[in-house]
């Protein structure tokens, strides 16, 4: 039971290190709180809009009034009468965009000609235009009394999910939390090697298998506690669990094993504890393309296939699906993928770690 003693030592080194523990558990919890606060709950704040009224007619001011009555829009005062002034303010950053009502607005309306409105924004800030265009189109057609050719009604299905933002962010950020294990595991192995602790232990009769077990087993309680904390915090924030919580736990456990395996590999390859920072070059992009923090549904297919080759996106998608009610059969492929990765990573980790023992 030599591995047990080494494992016990490593577990103590982890849980008696408040900085490490805070990083491991605190960062994902903080992320979760911030993302959920940013995404969900309260009403989105209205967009401030400036208007240039070159028409200066009864109809144009009525249209502006209608725009001002929309909740999503916060009309900036006063209304510009000349575009040059608005252009100047836009250039100086005083306003972020403006709507130009050209002269001839009322005339065109009366003879039922096409009306052209211009939405002017800085090209560097393209999201504004995309967000505001459909609002203006909708307000415009209602104001003009034009019957839209098609009426698309948004209608969410009857759902028992209380807070969709929590159900989206909690699993993603939990998986990101397990990715932090990569740097923790690598740091402990590299640190012990750098300080000579491993060398000292190599003068004892402990075998390579004792070290491999002793340096991986202690992370299992760590990942179980992490999973419980992430799920607990998620539930505290209003996570709705529709599917089987055990399945979510299984997914978390498997992705945690993958992270430990990667940590062993990194810890065996780098020369010092500080070099394990290199792991972050992979952790953050992997989290991004795996959809830990935002949806990756519309990611370019090349990036998507990279993400899908890696285990993380499978853990995130599958745990989201289960929380939203998917059955086990719907996530079986993801589970196989995770098991496959865990086995491969552990095997490689063991080989590399063994190699560090003889010189």
């Amino acid at each position, binding site marked *: 039971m030599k591995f047990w*003693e080494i494992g016990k*030592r490593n577990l103590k080194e982890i849980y*008696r290190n408040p900085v490490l523990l805070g990083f491991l558990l605190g960062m994902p919890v903080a992320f979760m709180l911030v993302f959920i606060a940013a995404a969900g709950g309260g009403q989105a704040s209205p967009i401030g809009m400036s208007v240039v009224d070159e028409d200066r007619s009864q109809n144009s001011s009525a249209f502006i009034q209608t725009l001002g009555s929309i909740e999503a829009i916060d009309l900036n005062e006063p209304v510009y009468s000349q575009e040059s002034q608005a252009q100047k303010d836009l250039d100086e950053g005083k306003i972020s965009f403006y709507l130009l009502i050209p002269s001839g607005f009322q005339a065109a309306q009366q003879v039922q000609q096409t009306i052209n409105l211009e939405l002017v924004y800085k090209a560097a800030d393209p999201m504004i235009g995309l967000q505001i265009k459909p609002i203006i189109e909708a307000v415009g057609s209602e104001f003009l009394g034009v019957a839209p050719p098609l009426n698309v009604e948004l209608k969410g299905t009857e759902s028992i999910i209380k807070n969709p933002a929590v159900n989206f962010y909690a699993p993603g950020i939990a998986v990101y939390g397990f990715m932090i294990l990569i740097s923790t595991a690598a740091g402990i192995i590299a640190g012990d090697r750098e300080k000579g602790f491993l060398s000292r*232990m190599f003068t004892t*009769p402990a075998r390579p298998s004792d070290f491999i077990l002793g340096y991986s087993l202690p992370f299992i309680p760590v990942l179980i506690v992490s999973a419980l904390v992430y799920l607990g915090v998620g539930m505290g924030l209003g996570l709705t669990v529709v599917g089987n919580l055990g399945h979510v736990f299984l997914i978390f456990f498997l992705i945690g094993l993958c992270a430990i395996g990667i940590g062993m590999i990194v810890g065996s390859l780098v020369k010092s504890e500080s070099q394990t920072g290199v792991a972050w070059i992979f952790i953050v992009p992997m989290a991004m393309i795996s959809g830990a923090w935002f949806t990756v549904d519309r990611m370019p297919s090349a990036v998507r296939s990279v993400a899908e080759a890696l285990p993380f996106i499978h853990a995130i998608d599958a745990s989201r699906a289960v929380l939203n009610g998917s059955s086990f059969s719907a996530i079986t492929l993801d589970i196989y993928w995770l098991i496959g990765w865990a086995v491969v990573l552990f095997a490689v980790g063991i080989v590399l770690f063994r190699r560090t023992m003889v010189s």
Partner: protein
Amino acid sequence: MNAVQTLKLTKEFDSLVAVDGVNLEIKKGELFSLLGPNGAGKTTTIRMLCCLLKPTNGTASILGHDVVKTPFAVKKLIGVSPQDTILSERLNCWENLALIGKVHGLSSDEVARRSEELLETMGLMERAKDQVRKFSGGMKRRLSIAMALVSDPQVLFLDEPTLGLDPQARRTIWEYIAGLKGEKTILLTTHYMEEADFLSDRIGIIDEGKVVALGTSQELKTNIIEMRSMVVSTDDLTAEVMEDLRNKYSRLEIAKGKLEIYHKDLDFKEIVDYLHSRGVTVYSAALEQPTLEDVFIQITGKKLRD
């Protein structure tokens, strides 16, 4: 069977020969010191004997077990205190000792008994339950040595056991090591000649990877030092006496009322009697004891702490 035996033990790192054909025979129960400057190859030798480094050439065995062919048999027999004090920083003394004891296969009871004994002797009992990262250098070193001893090893390797410690802490550790003499075979490395002199049964002087002299402290000093010296404090030397002495001994020097006599063999009584017989007042006289530093300079032409 020797406790430690090496034959032409050699370790090369790329182009550097760190250990160059070292032959050692350390008997059971002997305290043997490898004395040499930094970079002489002491630690590399120990690392090979502890199965941490594979020799490039030559063989080494501990109590008959080859370090390359049967490393695990060797590891069961040895205790090692590495040069850098290496502890598990967030464990307390008990836990550090238990870790090493248990990977050596000791039962919980044995570990507890041995630990208690060692913590008492090393004067660590008061702080035994504190995490060791808060300890002073001397305390850490004492615990590190205790960790090397907890498994009750037959052969003990102490790599620079008092490096960087203050004189008082060093003295405490010396006394403890001296107390182990005879019980355990100890291979100690040091670049402090006083340490080698004070503790060792035999000393191997090592320089640039080679053992350049081997023997007891006394043997090294008498066999290797070619010139001994005697300092006599006096003030009424006559030219005649000086002439006599100059004829008899290799070299004479007079400085600040002190007469220094150099020769291969010097007889204290003979010199003092001669001076008295010639009516010379002798205030004090002392035969200078050669040090291992002198031996080292004699052999290598350089100082130990260069």
